[in-house]
């Protein structure tokens, strides 16, 4: 067992599960989507991205790409949240909540691809 692989798999899967946890619930209901969860998703995704740095294989490159997509989506979600809460002063209206959650949904799709790729790689390794 390679501890590096364990850590790698752990963060990739955790990124997906946390993302899913934030995403489930009514799309435009702010009570169903907690800000702490979004924070955890962003932190874990960041860690997963950095862990993918420096892998020269084709698989590594695609994994890094999916992570970068997820990060882009999540940063956009955080930015929308901050704008709604602090800049416009309107608070989390259903519209703002919906766009934050749908953005995180996109990130989740990228995370799903990451996990699928991880599984494919594991299956191909056959060891």
């Amino acid at each position: 067992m390679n501890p590096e692989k364990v850590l790698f798999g752990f963060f990739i899967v955790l990124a997906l599960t946390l993302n899913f946890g934030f995403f489930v619930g009514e799309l435009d209901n702010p009570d169903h989507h907690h800000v702490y969860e979004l924070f955890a998703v962003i932190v874990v995704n960041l860690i997963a991205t950095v862990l993918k740095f420096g892998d020269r294989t084709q698989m590594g490159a695609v994994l890094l790409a999916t992570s970068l997509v997820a990060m882009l989506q999540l940063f956009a979600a955080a930015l929308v949240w901050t704008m709604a809460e602090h800049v416009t002063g309107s608070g989390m209206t259903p519209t703002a909540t919906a766009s934050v959650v749908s953005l995180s949904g996109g990130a989740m799709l990228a995370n799903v691809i990451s996990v699928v790729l991880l599984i494919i790689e594991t299956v191909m390794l056959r060891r």
Partner: protein
Amino acid sequence: MDNIVFLIFRRMRAPLLALIVVYSVAMLGMVLIPGQDADGNVWHMDFFHAFYFVSFMASTIGFGEIPHAFNAAQRLWVSFSIFFTVVVWLYSIGTVLALLKDETFQRALAERRFARKIKHLGDPFYLVCGYGQTGEALVRSLTERNQHAVVVDILEDRVSLLQIENLREYVPGFCGDARLPAHLLEAGLNHPLCEGVVALTNSNEANLQIAITAKLLHPEIEVICRADSHDIEANMASFGTDHIIDPFDTFALHLATAIQAPCLSLLQDWLSLGHGNLLQEPVYPPSKGLWVVCGYGRFGKAIYDKLIREGFEVVVVEASPDATGIPATAFVMGRGTEAETLSQANIERAVGLVAGTDNDANNLSIIMTARGLNRDLFVILRQNRKENDPVIEAVGADMVMLPSQIIANQIRVLLGAPLQHQFVKLVLHQEDEWACELISRISALVNHHAPEVWEVAFTEEDSHAVCAHVRRGSKLTLADLMRDPRDRERKLPCIPLMLLRHNERTLLPDPGISVQKDDHLLFCGSYTGRDRMEWTLQNENALSYILTGEARPEGWVWRHLSKRGAR
């Protein structure tokens, strides 16, 4: 490119992870700990402000406690996290700085820069492997003729010498082992503009390796090798190395030529001197008598063979005959630096002395001792190190053999003036009187300085005016070309040495013959002669003046007017 990004990513992984973890922990703490605003109401910091606060705290900027003044619990948390975040920042920056100074990283950067330079080379170039004395002399003379070179050497110091050397052309240098094909490829072996590879390292095996790599990977290019063992030379020749240069054999041949035909060897010397050098006095080695050869190494053997073939009596002095072998004729054991050994070798009645060991101090000592015993010796000195120039000059030997100079000179002529190389080879078959006459003709053209030697190719590119003239079916003789374009009654100070037409070479062509397209001519003469001839070759007006004696009207209007006037 890939290498560098990959390296940065790999190294930055740990510091980035540490940054992310420490930031998120500090932010989470700020969000979780309840604070109080000015009115005493409980408030929780939100993530946005937590991120803002941690960002300026970690970078030690510190804008203060916002949006409200902190309470004791918050301050406690901040005083913990400030140390962690600052330490992690220092760690990350330290890693980046260490990476920038890292040797692997620097090397990756240098290689990338070099590869880019090679890719953008726009002129034909020669790949010179080995930047020792020979390589230095060769690169200098190549660049002085506006030819380009790329240098590969295994030692970093020698490559960095390139940067301080004041060369006329830019010469990219690469530090690497030329024996490895990958390094040769990186240095531009496969580049379409690579004209040839010159292997000048001090190891025969390395030169052999370079030659075979070049011949296999880029068969069309010229490969020139230095070698000083006949074994290796035969090996190199077997797979088609274009030119193999053995400094010892070259010098021995030169000596033999000087003994048999002093004018011929002087002619060769003069033509290969290069621009701006002073002319040398001719040397006249004794043509019969006893020679003493000190040192029976590669050089000693080459000289010995030539002297024996010329019918001289030769005594060899050698300190370690076990390593070098013993010649068939007279032999004295010793270094030759002592009067006793030299006396045993009959130095008193000798006419010539060869100080040919591989140690400059010993060679000088041999000469000084021998001169004490016999003042009238003709002395040949083998110089091993270029740095010893001042002492070598002071001892005043009749002939000095410096291998690096010999090789560099020969390759320079080979690469820079192939026609001159053919000429020198052809001349060897001529009588000495022929050479003496040519020498006196040349010395009438130039004073004290070496004659300029140049090639003229009658192609569209090199001599546009002449080609246009010949295309119109008009005749143009060599004598016409040698007129001064400023005053056609005067002759340019130059001599046509050789004409190459359809692979046929004519020595000293007759001035009356008319030139054809694709002829190649070799001229020698003064610098002004070369300069003015260039004018005739390219400028139609200058050419027409030379042929007719009239200055042709140049512009369209004047041409038109002169036509009307003629009608």
